[in-house]
């Protein structure tokens, strides 16, 4: 309780900066933790779906498997093909990880709450409104969309730099797939923005308060469906994992990557997956709202509801991987351009009419 004179005199701008740095220092490692846990959960759940056991030897239930994997990858040799483009080959994993973590900056992780007025907190922090969201900007949704649009370059650069035909084909597939499904993804946001009247993710969550029938996954079911399918394609999860289809392309764009660079690419993919699920929770599943009138969604309960929704969506992604076969390439293009985009566009017209005439 003795912060000293210099800390008390912090200017508001500096306070904001320190808060942002603290949030970054909390959120990024937490995401890395969730990423390593996800690798284990995915393998275990997939194994159970296929009547296997999965990794269960390292620690209780095999929980230490991610650490073992990390240590193994750390000591592997870092190979680079002789014909690879050196700088592009080195830059690609960094670019992939950077863009995936940049998108996280505007995502809200759980409800806003007031910091306690006791404890070791310096005075200027006590009782302050706080939310695990690094930056609250007016065009939060567009920011995420812009960053995911840049995310494809990590994959494209990785595939091109390796100078390998499988990598190259993977990169080509991934760029074609991502810009096809980005359109549907963008169109699916539009109706949600119309209903909330704001690009801010916090406002969109607030517009869904009051009961589960006000959640956008019910009011905006077609948009939710389009979002979820397009998001699965954006993060290249099964049935859209053609960029790394192992049966035909070895490992696709990251064929030539080994050791920690391989781990970085994996991390970027999992963080992207977490980003789209957290975004889906905020945009369509009512964020941290309980959905049942009378059940409060403030404080710790809000975190519980929010976490349960995110966990469920992550499980659905794994479930899909355990269930569905991979698309054929022409089916992928056909589905994206001739089914998803028209559905999303028609739904925009319906919602616009509803908002303008019926006051939705």
């Amino acid at each position, binding site marked *: 309780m003795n912060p000293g004179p210099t800390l008390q005199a912090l200017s508001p701008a500096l306070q904001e900066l320190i808060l942002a740095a603290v949030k970054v220092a909390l959120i990024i490692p937490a995401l890395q933790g969730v990423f390593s846990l996800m690798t284990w959960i995915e393998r275990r759940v997939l194994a159970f779906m296929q009547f296997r056991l999965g990794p269960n030897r390292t620690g209780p239930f095999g929980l230490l498997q991610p650490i073992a994997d990390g240590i193994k990858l750390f000591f592997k040799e870092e190979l680079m093909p002789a014909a690879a483009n050196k700088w592009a080959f080195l830059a690609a994993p960094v670019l992939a990880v950077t863009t995936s973590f940049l998108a996280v900056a505007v995502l809200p992780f759980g409800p806003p709450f007031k910091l306690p007025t006791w404890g070791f907190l310096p005075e200027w922090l006590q009782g302050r409104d706080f939310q695990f969201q690094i930056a609250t*900007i*007016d*065009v939060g949704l*567009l*920011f995420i*969309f*812009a*960053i995911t*649009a*840049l995310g*494809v*370059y990590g994959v*494209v*650069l990785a595939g*091109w730099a390796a100078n390998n035909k499988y990598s*190259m084909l993977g*990169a*080509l597939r991934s*760029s*074609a797939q*991502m*810009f096809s499904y*980005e359109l549907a993804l*963008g169109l699916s946001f539009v109706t949600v923005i119309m209903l909330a009247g704001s*690009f801010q993710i916090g406002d969109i969550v607030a517009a869904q308060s009051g009961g589960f029938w006000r959640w956008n996954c019910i009011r905006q079911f077609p948009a939710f469906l389009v979002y979820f399918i397009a998001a699965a394609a954006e993060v290249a999860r099964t049935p859209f994992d053609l960029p790394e289809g192992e049966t035909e392309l070895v490992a696709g764009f990251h064929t030539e990557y080994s050791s920690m660079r391989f781990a970085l690419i994996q991390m970027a993919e999992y963080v992207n997956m977490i980003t789209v699920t957290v975004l889906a929770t905020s945009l369509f599943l009512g964020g941290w709202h309980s959905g049942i009138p009378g059940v409060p969604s403030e404080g710790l309960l809000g975190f519980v509801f929010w976490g349960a929704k995110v966990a469920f969506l992550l499980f659905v992604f794994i479930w899909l991987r355990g269930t569905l076969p991979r698309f054929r390439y022409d089916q992928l293009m056909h589905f994206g351009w001739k089914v998803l985009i028209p559905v999303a566009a028609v739904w925009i017209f319906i919602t616009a009419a509803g908002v303008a005439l019926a006051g939705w």
Partner: protein
Amino acid sequence: MDQALFYAAAALAVVSALVVIGQKNPIYSAFALIVTLCSLSVIFGLLGSPFIAALQVIVYAGAIMVLFLFVLMLLNVKSEEDVPSRGGRTLASIAVVLVALLAGQAGFVLWNTTLAPAAAFDASTRRMSAILFSPHFLYVFEATSILILAALVGAVALAKKDA
């Protein structure tokens, strides 16, 4: 702070734009162009319009450049080689004259204007859409959209011809 950011973004934009035209490998050029477009987006953001900044990245740095890269990779374009073309010397001297003329004009304009920071203006999303969809610009806006659509249909029709 804003000023430092502006100079950093502006310098990055100019340098990467030079790389775009100076680079022999088209893939490098494409990536440099992405950097240029992103630094322009930072400048839009500093001017108080995060909406245009985001659109700049989504449309140009995102969608259009992915398409460029896709085509470059699909055709597997190799680096240009130094082939001395016929009449290269004449063309080069014309280019030098034109560049000198352009630089002279730019210098003349800059010399005769006093630079002042832009007056505060409202570049918010709401204001922008109000202007874009006002009776003044609505028809232009919609006509442009139809023009782009027509170009799209034309491109598809041309590509289909052989098949």
